[in-house]
C-alpha cells in the first residue's frame, strides 16, 4: 500500500495531465456529437428523399463500422484527399462523428415518443411546422431523451480512450507510458480505470440527472 501511495505521488501530475486531455476530448466530442445528432436526426425525418437518404447513410455507416477504424481513416487516409488534421482534432472529430450517429437515433426516438395527439392539436391550431417542432414537440422530446443521452455520454467518455492509439496524450496514453517505464501495470492501469470510473459515476451521471430535474421543472411536466 505504501508503494502505491508513493506511486501516486510520483505520477499524479502525469495522470492529471492525461485526464485533462481526456476531458477536453470528451467535451469537444460531446459538442460535436450533439450537433451531428440533431442535424442527422432531422435529416432522417425529412420528407424530402435525398435529404433523408443522406441522414440514413451517414447513420448506418458511422454506426456500422468501428470507431477505431473511423479514427484511423480520418487521421491516415483523409490527408490523401487533401485534408490533413492534427491528431488531437482527428481524435475528437472521430469520436463526435461516431457517437453523433448513435445520438441521432436517440433524438429521433425522443421526438417519435411524443404522443401523436400533440401533433394533431398543433395542426388543428394551424401552427406552422417549424414552430410546431420548436415550441411543442421538441421540448417534450428533450425530456424524453435525456436518460439515454446520459448513457451515451458515458460511452463517449470511454471512446475517447481510443485517441491514445493515434498518440493523443490523454489519460490512456499517459498510463501506457507510465506502464512501459515502471511495469507496475496493476497500479498504473488500475489508477486510470478508477479515474474513468470516478468521472463517469460521480460527474457525468449526477450531472445528467441534475439536468433532467431542472428541465422537467422548467417544463413543469410531472
Amino acid at each position: 500500500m505504501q508503494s502505491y501511495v508513493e506511486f501516486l505521488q510520483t505520477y499524479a501530475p502525469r495522470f492529471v495531465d492525461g485526464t485533462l486531455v481526456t476531458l477536453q476530448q470528451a467535451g469537444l466530442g460531446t459538442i460535436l456529437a450533439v450537433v451531428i445528432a440533431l442535424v442527422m436526426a432531422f435529416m432522417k425525418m425529412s420528407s424530402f428523399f435525398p435529404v433523408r437518404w443522406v441522414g440514413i447513410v451517414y447513420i448506418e455507416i458511422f454506426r456500422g463500422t468501428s470507431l477505431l477504424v473511423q479514427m484511423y481513416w480520418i487521421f491516415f487516409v483523409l490527408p490523401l484527399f487533401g485534408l490533413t488534421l492534427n491528431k488531437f482534432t482527428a481524435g475528437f472529430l472521430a469520436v463526435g462523428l461516431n457517437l453523433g450517429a448513435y445520438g441521432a437515433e436517440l433524438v429521433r426516438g425522443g421526438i417519435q415518443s411524443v404522443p401523436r395527439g400533440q401533433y394533431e392539436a398543433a395542426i388543428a391550431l394551424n401552427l406552422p411546422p417549424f414552430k410546431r417542432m420548436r415550441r411543442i414537440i421538441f421540448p417534450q422530446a428533450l425530456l424524453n431523451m435525456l436518460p439515454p443521452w446520459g448513457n451515451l455520454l458515458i460511452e463517449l467518455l470511454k471512446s475517447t480512450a481510443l485517441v491514445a492509439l493515434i498518440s493523443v496524450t490523454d489519460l490512456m496514453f499517459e498510463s501506457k507510458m507510465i506502464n512501459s517505464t515502471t511495469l507496475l501495470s496493476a497500479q498504473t492501469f488500475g489508477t486510470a480505470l478508477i479515474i474513468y470510473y470516478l468521472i463517469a459515476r460521480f460527474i457525468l451521471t449526477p450531472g445528467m440527472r441534475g439536468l433532467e430535474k431542472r428541465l422537467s421543472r422548467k417544463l413543469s411536466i410531472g
Partner: protein
Amino acid sequence: MFDWKWNFTFEILPRLLEATLKTLLAAGFGYLIALILGLAFALAQRTPFRLLTHIVREFVEFVRSTPLVLQIFFVFYVGPQFGIRLSPWTSGMIAIGLHYASYLSEVYRAGLDSVPKGQWEACIALNLSVKRTYYKIIIPQAIPTVIPGFGNYLVAIFKDTPMLSVIGVTELFHAATSIGAETYRFLEPYTLVGLIFLAISLPTAMFIRRFEDWMRASLGMKKLYAKD
C-alpha cells in the same frame, strides 16, 4: 490525391479476408463467454446474499463505466506483473468477455424484471421448483424483451474487436495496420476494413430487426419497428 490501386487491392484482399475470420472467431467466442458470465452476474444479483449482490453490482457498474481498451491492457499486462503469462488471445477474450458480460447482465436483468410479479407468485402457489420456475415459466417470457439487447451487443462486440489489435491479436484491423506499415499505403487497407465491417454488421443488424419482429409477431405482440 485520390489514387486507388486496384491490383494492390486484390493483392491484400485474401490476407484481409483471412483476418476477418479471426475477427469473427474472436467476436463469437467473446460473445459466448459474455452470454454465460452475464447470466451468472444477473443471477448473482438476485440472490438473498446482500454482500454478494453488492459486490457483483459494483463490479458490473465499474466494468461498464470504464473503457474496454484500457481493460484489455490491464488484463494483458497485469498477468506478467504477478508471474502469469497470458497470450494476447486469452487476455483479449477475458477482457471482452467480462466487459460484455457486464452489459449483458443488465439485459438479462431487464428481461427478468419485465416478467410480471404475478408469474413468480403463481409459480410459488403451484409449488414449482426454482429450476422449473426459471426454465418453463420465467425465461420463456423474458426472451422477447432480451432479444433486441442481445442482438445489439452481438453487433457491438464485433465492432469492438479492433481494440484487440493493440495487444497483438492478429484480427482484421491489425492486418490492415500491418499492411499500412509494410507498404506505406493506407487508403486501400483502411477503406476495405471499413467496407468489410459494413458488409457484416449491416445485414446482421437488419436480420436481428427482422428476427425481433418475427418473434414478437409469433408471440402475438405488435411490431416494434414500423416501416419508416
